[in-house]
């Protein structure tokens, strides 16, 4: 049962399995284990980023293709839900339409970009996605009549998902283990369930024959072509799949925040976050996404406190307080990023599985 759910890709390390189980349990019961607005928000962000990072890993870790447009696909999904909810009225149907259209648009865009760049050289893809993604980001903030520009869009999700919606009054008296049963709780479980399904789908994809061919192409594309696999088709398909999943993750994020804006979905900083999560967790293992995203989101929330502590400790010394100021945490992420690519290329999961 578990084996088929995980598509035969077991964690292959007791310690790793234990960590994954702990993370799963914590996320599954987050509203009950850690009641509080901020912690539940953190848990939802972890769920969504696990899916986003896993979809990026399909491209980077399994396909060996670097893309800088992943936030663009993420944003397309988020804006899809926001626009459909704004124009079609609140309701589950508009959420589904928005998410579906977003995923289709993202896949189509990925197909076009992939066909243009991947047929020549995989390295073109990195450059072209960077150019296209930044053009789209500027475009979104320019056409403010549709997208709300820099301010973004705030929209209404179905009443059943709002905090004002209460249920279970008769059965449990409106509370379960001290947690109020309201729409926010439902939203969290919608996010959690959606993320879990997408995650297992990705696990299925990378462990299918398709995933094996993709890995073969990553290792030696010339040889894969010689054996008879059409390298371009496999790479483009991987790009489209990963874009569609990223868009769906974006839709979930938009539903959770009930807001979309360029900063939360399209910015280059999120792209860098994703890169870092993949590298820390371990490229080429979908489980790496879980570890990477969890560690990173937790660090993001709590590391900044540490840095402001360091900054005030070093007060009076030259430059040091500036270096440790919480606004400069991207600097330290960059250092961490380079160090992990050099010394830690298989990431946490690779280390735990004993691959050197």
């Amino acid at each position, binding site marked *: 049962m578990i084996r088929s759910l995980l598509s035969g890709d077991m964690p292959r390390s007791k310690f790793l399995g234990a960590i994954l189980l702990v993370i799963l349990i914590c996320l599954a019961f987050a509203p009950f284990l850690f009641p509080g607005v901020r912690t539940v928000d953190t848990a939802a962000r972890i769920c969504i980023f696990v899916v986003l990072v896993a979809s990026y890993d399909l491209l*980077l870790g399994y396909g*060996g293709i*670097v893309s800088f447009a992943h936030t663009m696909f993420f944003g397309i999904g988020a804006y899809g839900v926001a626009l459909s909810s704004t124009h079609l009225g609140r309701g589950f149907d508009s959420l589904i339409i928005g998410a579906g259209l977003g995923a289709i648009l993202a896949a189509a865009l990925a197909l076009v970009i992939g066909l*243009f*760049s991947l*047929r*020549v*050289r*995989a*390295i*073109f893809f*990195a*450059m*072209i996605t*960077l*150019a*296209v993604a*930044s*053009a789209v980001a*500027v*475009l979104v903030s*320019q056409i403010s009549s549709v997208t709300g520009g820099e301010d973004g869009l705030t929209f209404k999700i179905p009443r059943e998902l709002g905090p004002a919606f209460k249920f279970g009054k008769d059965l449990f008296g409106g509370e379960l283990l001290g947690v109020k049963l309201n729409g926010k709780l439902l939203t969290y479980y919608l996010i959690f369930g959606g993320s879990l399904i997408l995650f297992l789908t990705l696990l299925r994809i990378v462990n299918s024959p398709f995933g094996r061919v993709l890995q073969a192409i990553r290792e030696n594309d010339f040889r894969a072509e010689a054996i008879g696999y059409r390298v371009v088709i496999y790479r483009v398909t991987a790009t489209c799949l990963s874009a569609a999943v990223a868009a769906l993750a974006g839709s979930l994020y938009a539903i959770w925040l009930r807001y979309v804006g360029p900063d939360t979905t399209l910015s*280059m900083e999120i792209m*860098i976050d994703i*890169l870092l999560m993949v*590298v820390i967790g371990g490229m080429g293992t979908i489980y790496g996404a879980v570890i990477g995203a969890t560690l990173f989101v937790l660090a993001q929330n709590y590391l900044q406190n540490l840095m402001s502590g360091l900054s005030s400790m070093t007060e009076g010394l030259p*430059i040091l307080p*500036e*270096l440790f100021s919480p*606004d*400069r945490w*991207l*600097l330290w*992420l*960059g*250092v961490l*990023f*380079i160090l992990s*690519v*050099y010394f830690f*290329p298989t990431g946490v999961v690779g280390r735990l599985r004993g691959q050197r």
Partner: protein
Amino acid sequence: MTAAPEHAPTMARTTLRDRLAPYAPFLLVPALAVAGFLAVQNPASWLTLTVSGLAMGMMIFIMASGLTLVFGLMDVINFGHGAFVSVGAFVGISVLLALGQMTGAPSLGLNLLAVLAAVLAAMAATATMGWAFERVIVKPVYGNHLSQILVTMGGLIIAEQLIIVLWGPEEIYFTRPETLKGALTFGDAAIEKYRLVAVGVGLVVFAAMRFVLRRTKIGLIVRAGVQNGEMVAALGYRLRLVFVGVFIAGSALAGLGGVMWGLYQEVITAHMGNQAMILIFIVVIIGGLGSVEGCFVGALLVGLLQNYIAFVEPKLALISNIALMVAILMWRPMGMIPVVKAK
């Protein structure tokens, strides 16, 4: 002994099309200028737009040329190239601001001296930085594109953040030196003086680069290295040293481009390198990775097209570059002047 049979081969005459094909990219630039003239329909504005397009193209070329050569020679793709642009701009502009008395004086000589000092300081800073970048960041990941992209991207982030630490997060506004302000008028057309300077500097850099690559021994080694590095190494040249030299020179040029770009915009931010990077990538892709001439033509095309479109239909200006790239890649998938590699 019989005479050799009559042999009078008839060579098929190459068609005009075949003979023009190698020059097609170079003809695109005047063709685009003519198309721009038809679209703008006003000689005065066309002249202004063309000069500013050429100026922009020259600056992009200066920034991009190092990147394309580094790729051609060692197959190293440097996503951190934009960092050199930002650092060059910040160092250069700081020097200019420090020399406020010289830039404020209405004397061409003093102004140019100040700009020269700024440019030299910027190029020295970025050359040193390029050397360090190559040693620390790029060297361990030769031959692995994936790690190169990731690591150099990390380098870009660090450089950007260090600029913010050293110069503060706000953008810095300033004015150009006194004699470079204002415009010259030809009939109805007003042409900013600085843009003429930029075009001049770009042409000089391009000519110098071509001279070094085509007429000197070191240029010969570099060109041979681009075509077949192993063979050059086998002949006893230390290609690694040549490569470090090219990397440093490319970084210094990016620094020069940064100062010029800063002077053009009259504002510098830590993210300017990142933004320039997007244009640089488009230019090196449409030019053909590794080709200096292609990079030059590509830069001029991007500069001209962006200016014409911004005048005719401002809304389309954003996607004009992407559209240009798509069109060129449909025409020649490896870029306009593909580099032939002996493999």
